[in-house]
């Protein structure tokens, strides 16, 4: 969702190349010059989204002819409407086409006919803006009989459509992440698929060395004395503790893991495992166990200094007020407790395992 699909990149280039041309035509054209600014903006935006749809046809033609036909219809219709501003039914037709296109995209995403990506979502943002510009009544414009209806439609319909589309895309993206996004907000390191015997041995060695090294920290007071501190609320089921002194320590040193993970149980913190972390954003660490010890990087997370809490960035790339969008350096967990849903190096600990520890 936060990446540009390589096959869709052409849509971005086409939009950027065509935008100045569309602005020029609308500003200079006799038909458009006499229209209100909102209509002119709508025409430019519809022309741009039309070109994006047309540019995607060659890539979809071989694999998905039906979608290519729909793209062709969309592209031609948007370009035609961008030119036909004096047509009596322009406003109604443009609004209908924009709503149909936005809902069509949502249908494609939710029925997994297309994976959401930045080009698709950016095009939707352009279409939302175009829809708003089409609907908004303008002062000094020829009086509109249905003026109050347009205001009501704009003020309620546009936000509703945006919320439905945004949540629809988001739910689908979280429910069915691609293989490299196994956990909400985390991107996995690329590795070979099946571990070799050497990688299996290396993973076992890393696990045994790390598990032995952090035995003393089963008493959280020892961890505290060693410099580990909770980074975030201890009201959550588990909390990461970090040691600032080890931030710049050598990578993947079992004696000096950058973090520890504790379950917050009713009888105090219980050690779940260790966490190794890279110093820089964007670089994955050494991967001795291949697919068994793939690192992961939390991207597009909203971080707030208030209480050191996190949430996830929306599909529209916004965070709650007071939080900023960050990417955490790549990390690798080593779970020393039984983790049935992913094993000792999984991105996450099974919540059921944490709950079971709390019950003991």
């Amino acid at each position: 969702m936060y990446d540009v699909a390589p096959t869709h990149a052409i849509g971005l280039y086409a939009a950027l190349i065509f935008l100045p041309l569309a602005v020029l035509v609308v500003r200079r054209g006799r038909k458009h010059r006499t229209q209100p600014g909102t209509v002119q903006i709508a025409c430019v935006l519809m022309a741009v989204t039309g070109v994006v749809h047309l540019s995607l046809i060659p890539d979809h033609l071989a694999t998905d002819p039906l979608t290519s036909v729909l793209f062709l219809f969309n592209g031609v219709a948007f370009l035609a409407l961008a030119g036909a501003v004096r047509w009596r039914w322009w406003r109604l037709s443009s609004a209908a086409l924009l709503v149909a296109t936005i809902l069509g995209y949502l249908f494609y995403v939710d029925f997994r006919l297309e994976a959401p990506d930045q080009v698709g979502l950016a095009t939707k943002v352009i279409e939302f803006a175009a829809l708003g510009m089409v609907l908004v009544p303008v002062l000094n414009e020829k009086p509109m009989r249905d003026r109050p209806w347009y205001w009501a439609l704009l003020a309620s319909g546009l936000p509703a459509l945006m919320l439905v589309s945004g949540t629809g895309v988001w739910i689908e993206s979280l429910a069915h992440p691609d293989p490299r996004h196994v956990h909400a907000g985390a991107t996995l390191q690329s590795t070979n698929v099946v571990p070799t015997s050497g990688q299996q041995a290396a993973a076992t060695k890393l696990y045994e060395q790390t598990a032995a090294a952090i035995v003393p920290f089963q008493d959280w007071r020892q961890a505290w004395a060693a410099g580990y501190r909770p980074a975030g609320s201890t009201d959550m089921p588990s909390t990461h503790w970090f040691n600032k002194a080890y931030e710049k320590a050598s990578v993947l040193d079992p004696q000096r893991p950058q973090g520890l993970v504790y379950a917050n149980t009713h009888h105090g913190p219980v050690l779940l495992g260790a966490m190794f972390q890279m110093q820089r954003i964007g670089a994955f660490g050494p991967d001795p166990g291949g697919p068994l010890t793939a690192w992961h990087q939390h991207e597009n997370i909203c971080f707030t200094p208030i209480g050191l809490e996190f949430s996830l960035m929306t599909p529209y790339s916004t965070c709650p007020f007071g939080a900023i969008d960050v990417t955490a350096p790549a990390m690798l967990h080593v779970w020393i407790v039984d983790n049935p849903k992913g094993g000792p190096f999984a991105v996450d600990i099974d919540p059921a395992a944490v709950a079971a520890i709390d019950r003991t």
Partner: protein
Amino acid sequence: MKGVNATSRPEAAFVLLLMQATFWFLAGISALPFVLGGEVYMLLLAAFSFALAGFTVWSGMEVVWRRTWARRAVLVLEWTCLIGSLLMLALPIGANRGPVSLLVNSVLPFAVILLLRGKAVRNQFGTPRSVTG
């Protein structure tokens, strides 16, 4: 026809402000599941986000009514958003630099500023409501 184009700028700005408010509203909603997960301060952030979304819609409506204070408030808000988003892009914190982020966090505030700046637009504000409305 210049007059028609000039007077439609506040309405165009309203559309963009309505979109921006919806983006913030969704951001506020996105914080709520984390409150249920134990991140209590996220409730505060969600409340701030909803309040900001409400203020943005209200300011947008007042811009349509050609209120001078609303134009100023929106310009301050959008400059703050624009500077904040550019700062996020410049800092090495791994902020998203995709097209959606650029459109929503940088291009949209910039477009609102462009729509509401300039003498011609400023002169339309502050006129009696009966004339503009």
